[in-house]
């Protein structure tokens, strides 16, 4: 109890409680993530079960009974009669899955490479950081596209759809590890020369393990900030790639794919097919961004 009380009163939580923006955006993120995770329970329809679709429900307007079937859909339906609300929930699942997994992949890769570079030093460090520099000169989205393009060339045609999600994750993750590596390497360089590490070396403890124990806590807050901001970037990158038709396939539509599909109905009056996924994407990216911004300000007060 006391610990909870202390945590509740800690500066971090205090400044969170007193930042309406942070509270609202965290609430929004939680609502969106939870509704994506529990999409199968929340969504009134399963948009991926073709047997449940009735083509005659196609293009139902939001909250209005369909002319042929009389069914009512909250946010309307798309050309196939799929409930837009359910599709958004499932699409967000894919967007978030790709986003989270890609960031996790980038984080693990970046943190390990940063640790190795900072700790081992010498030739290894030069090699890793050179690669990082080179990659940093290329925008993430381009790197992701290239990886996607190459993967598309390598995978057999019929595997492309199945592989697409994983290719996306790897492409976005690989394009995003550099920031993590840089921060961790910097912290490692500082920590490496501290006395306890030298002492640990002297008494024959494995310094690597010690470093891990001491460095990770030190870099936790910058890594958290980078991860949050990266998550927003990854979600947008995924949406962009899918929109360009080099991302999630229509069989596993993410928010970007839905917007891409909806764009075809921009002028035909079925505005809900593009509007609602766009709003969802914006809400998701904005709330994660706001949270990241707040985290950066709070954990890194000198930037406030």
């Amino acid at each position, binding site marked *: 109890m006391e610990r909870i009380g202390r945590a509740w009163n800690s500066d971090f939580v205090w400044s969170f409680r007193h930042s309406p923006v942070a509270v609202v955006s965290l609430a929004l993120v939680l609502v969106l993530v939870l509704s994506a995770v529990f999409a199968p329970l929340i969504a009134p329809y399963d948009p991926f079960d073709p047997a449940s679709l009735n083509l005659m429900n196609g293009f139902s307007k939001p909250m209005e009974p369909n002319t042929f079937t009389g069914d009512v859909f909250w946010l309307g339906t798309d050309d196939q009669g799929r409930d837009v609300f359910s599709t958004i929930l499932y699409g967000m699942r894919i967007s978030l899955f790709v986003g989270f997994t890609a960031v996790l992949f980038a984080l693990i890769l970046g943190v390990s490479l940063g640790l190795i570079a900072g700790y081992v030093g010498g030739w290894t460090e030069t090699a890793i950081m050179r690669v990082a520099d080179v990659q940093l*000169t290329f925008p993430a989205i381009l790197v992701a596209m290239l990886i996607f393009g190459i993967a598309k060339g390598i995978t057999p045609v019929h595997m492309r759809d199945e592989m697409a999600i994983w290719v996306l994750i790897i492409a976005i993750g690989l394009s995003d590890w550099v920031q993590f590596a840089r921060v961790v390497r910097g912290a490692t360089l500082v920590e490496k020369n501290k006395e306890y590490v030298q002492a640990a070396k002297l008494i024959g403890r494995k310094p690597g393990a010690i470093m891990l124990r001491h460095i990770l806590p030190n870099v936790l807050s910058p890594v958290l900030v980078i991860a949050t901001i990266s998550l927003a970037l990854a979600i947008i990158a995924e949406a962009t790639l899918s929109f*360009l038709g080099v991302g999630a396939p229509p069989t596993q539509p993410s928010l970007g794919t839905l*917007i891409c599909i909806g764009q075809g109905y921009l002028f035909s009056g079925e505005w809900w097919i593009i509007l609602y996924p766009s709003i969802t994407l914006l809400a998701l990216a904005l709330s994660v961004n706001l949270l990241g911004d707040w985290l950066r300000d709070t954990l890194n007060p000198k930037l406030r």
Partner: protein
Amino acid sequence: MLAYSIRRVVQSIVVLLVVGLVAFSMFRFVGDPIDNMLGQERTDADIERLRGELGLDRPFVVQYGRFLTNAATGNLGVSYRQGRPVASILMERAPATLELAAVSGLFAIVLGVALGVFTAIRRNGIAANLIMTISLVGVSLPTFLIGILLIYLFAVELGWLPSFGRGDTVKLGGWSTGFLTSSGLKALILPSITLGLYQMTLIMRLVRSEMLEVLRAEYIRFARARGLRERAINFHHALKNTLVPVITVTGLQLGSIIAFAIITETVFQWPGVGLLFINAIQFVDIPVMAAYLMLISVMFVGINLIVDLLYFAIDPRLRVDRTVTEG
């Protein structure tokens, strides 16, 4: 400085060689070039002839060397999809992308620096906070959505600006420019805003945070303690120091503009290299992809070199004379 420059140039060449290797490997190993170049009704003789022509029977290193010398002399292969030399396709498309990138880069830098300085100086003001919040919306809004929104608003609903393409262009030598016709200039507006907006917000936020950092510096306090005017402090003392880190990142951002042009060009059907590239990805047109990669990397490396040199111009600490008076 000379040593430094030489080192940078050598590094750039290494980068280009690595990128070249990636590009070559793509060409060589992603999909069978023979398969892609010959149609359905090919004969074994055709395959052998092409294999010889392309030198695919030689050792890898020889092939790579040949690829590089070809690339250096402007021979980038033939597009699988269009059946035309990639180099000439790129030459046709490059002006469109470069003009778009230049205009949106200018837009992003001018507005980004101005707004960044403004929000840093008035960091507690209502307007500054509003701008910061809007900028977060801007960062969270994917480029393609901005483009669609702008088209819908300004082209379809209001009918003020064209929705696609470059308008009329004028040929100047081998360069087709849209700067000289009114329709060309009008056509530039929406894509430039779309492309520049994201970079603008990034530059703005960067300038703001760097400026805030600088404004906290001791020499700014000292300048205040000396009774200098706020304007002199902000624009003479702080801005100059802010620009040093901003230049690096902005240089990188300019590189990204060329890459992000892919999205804008798709939305606006802007006939540049980005649109070419995205089509190449969809059709797995490897020579075009490889050539685009090489072209972009040459541009990036060039931009980076320029940025490094700009550094020298702005920051006296990096210049050669390091005479120190003992005291």
